[in-house]
């Protein structure tokens, strides 16, 4: 009976009282140990509650920002002036991915649940230039595309689909001709939520699904059976994944689950690289009192080997809490805090050449962040000690 009493008293935590979740560490303390990001610029899309779900910016020229919105359109902004330069409409269902074209700033790919990937050229009055789809079962039976990526040599476009007539597909097209090169449908049992080419091994591809698996393929092989190299069972549901390099040049895959956990795996041995980090651990590292409000946004590109960076926030209040976390030496530590955030963040993008970080979210605006240039040499050890001495046991669940 005692156990049940505790279980029931914990229900109190679930009242939507945002005072329940707060930062444990004071602002001044965090200022000493965390990198501070400040709002450089902010732009609102419109008065409607459109979410900014996807974001892309070329790493070369970097003068345009491409945003995928929840209203089936994409918009393009000039990064210097923050003026809108284009609005790309044509998809009739939710946009699931936005990627700027090969090294150029005028070309962008967008994918959608409407079953198409569209290539747009801004120089041609924003017209759709090319379309990629699998119309093998008819133009009215297109497979809903939930994620896509472009190979490093820009010759192949790969996409993952949602469950369609009982199968979850991976589709491949020749980027130039839009010819459908083939597909896989045996390796996942449910919606494929993320697909990402390996940064250097040009034929390697990773996929994640709500079936809990992360698969790695070598698409130079002739059949799907031979192409499937590794399968990792997260025993959860994969939202996003990212390739990273572990120590000793071993490949790794990090993953964010739909239950707001973080996992890092070593692909070769198909074993966890670090202990799985559940939502309550993430809340501790974020210095928050309650894990019920913590959410993970997305990964950021890695700065160096053996490092995984991601953004995490809290939905408490208006979603003001936003932090950057890093897995370094297999330990998760807080690295930066974003001052002046005003929304639940859903997409992010790093523009290294301009030293900017951009976030977009559920209140329909995007923010350009700049850091105060604090030293990056923060020792993980010193931060961990702070966490241990400050963490309270409020909000702990006795599961």
């Amino acid at each position, binding site marked *: 009976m005692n156990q049940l009493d505790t279980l029931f008293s914990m229900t109190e935590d679930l009242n939507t009282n945002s005072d329940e979740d707060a930062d444990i560490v004071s602002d001044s303390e965090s200022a000493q140990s965390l990198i501070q990001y400040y709002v450089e610029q902010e732009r609102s899309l419109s008065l409607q509650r459109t979410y900014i779900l996807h974001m892309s910016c070329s790493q070369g020229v970097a003068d345009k920002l491409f945003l995928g919105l929840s209203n089936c359109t994409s918009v393009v902004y000039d990064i210097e002036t923050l003026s809108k330069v284009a609005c790309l409409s044509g998809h009739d269902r939710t946009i699931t991915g936005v990627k700027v074209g090969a090294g150029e700033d005028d070309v962008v790919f967008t994918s959608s649940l409407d079953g198409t990937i569209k290539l747009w050229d801004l120089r041609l009055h924003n017209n759709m230039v090319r379309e990629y789809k699998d119309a093998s079962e008819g133009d009215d039976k297109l497979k809903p595309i939930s994620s896509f990526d472009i190979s490093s040599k820009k010759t192949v476009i790969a996409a993952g689909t949602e469950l369609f007539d009982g199968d979850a597909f991976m589709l491949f097209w020749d980027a130039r001709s839009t010819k459908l090169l083939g597909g896989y449908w*045996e390796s996942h049992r449910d919606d494929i939520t993320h697909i990402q080419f390996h940064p250097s091994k040009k034929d390697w591809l990773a996929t994640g699904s709500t079936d*809990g698996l992360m698969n790695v393929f070598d698409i130079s092989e002739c059949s799907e059976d031979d192409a499937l190299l590794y399968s990792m069972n997260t025993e959860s549901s994969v939202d996003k994944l990212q390739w990273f390099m572990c120590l000793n040049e071993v490949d790794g895959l990090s993953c964010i689950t*739909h239950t707001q956990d973080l996992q890092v795996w070593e692909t070769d*041995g198909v*074993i966890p690289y670090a202990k799985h980090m559940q939502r309550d651990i993430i809340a501790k590292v974020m210095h928050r009192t309650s894990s019920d409000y913590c959410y993970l946004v997305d990964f950021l590109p890695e700065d160096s080997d053996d490092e995984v960076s991601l953004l995490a926030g809290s939905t408490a209040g208006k979603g003001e809490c936003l932090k950057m976390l890093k897995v370094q030496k297999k330990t998760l530590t807080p690295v930066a805090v974003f001052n002046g955030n005003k929304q639940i963040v859903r997409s992010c993008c790093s523009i290294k050449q301009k030293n900017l970080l951009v976030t977009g979210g*559920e209140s329909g605006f995007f923010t350009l962040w700049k850091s105060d240039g604090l030293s990056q040499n923060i020792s993980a050890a010193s931060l961990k000690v702070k966490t241990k001495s400050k963490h309270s046991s409020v909000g702990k669940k006795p599961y």
Partner: protein
Amino acid sequence: MSSKVSRDTLYECVREVLRHSQEKKRNFLETVEIQIGLKNYDPQKDKRFSGTVKLKHIPRPKMQVCILGDQQHCDEAKANNVPFMDVEGLKKMNKNKKLVKKLAKKYDAFLASEALIKQIPRLLGPGLNKAGKFPGLLSHQEGMMAKIDEVKATIKFQMKKVLCLSVAVGHVGMTEDELVQNVHLAINFLVSLLKKHWQNVRSLHVKSTMGPPQRLY
């Protein structure tokens, strides 16, 4: 301020579900599930509601887990009457799709030793993947029986297009307390994932497979 479910309401509800199942006994063990109806949630824009949660008490007692083990794990499985297969047994299947499919159908879940798990795609092809039965990792750091119980106690949930979710949390052979604990844990967990917590919940029901739904919230 939104309401929460009181302990009395929860007990009453579970009691009713059990009572109905006693009154009209079926010739199979009825599952008990919770049905959660959402509101103020847009599946086109809001984060996907999908994942797994480990319950306190095993909801599916008949669940069969098979160990794909190294020598040590196979010995332990044998000693504990747990079905198992070693690497030789897997090699003998010769990547035959029919055999792999048959294996997948025979068991509800699989666990594989570290040494074996990376070989599964090579040895069996994507058959287990397709069946949704790719093994979970069984390391030597944790106890095998504990991991098996963990697998048996873990349930999956996923909301697709409709704003309603059904999750199996137990069966009618469980005690009131056990059911209450499982229902409570599952609800707490699911609600904690919603952006606005209880403000995203329109309704909650508990029901047994053949019984009428009992309103909880």
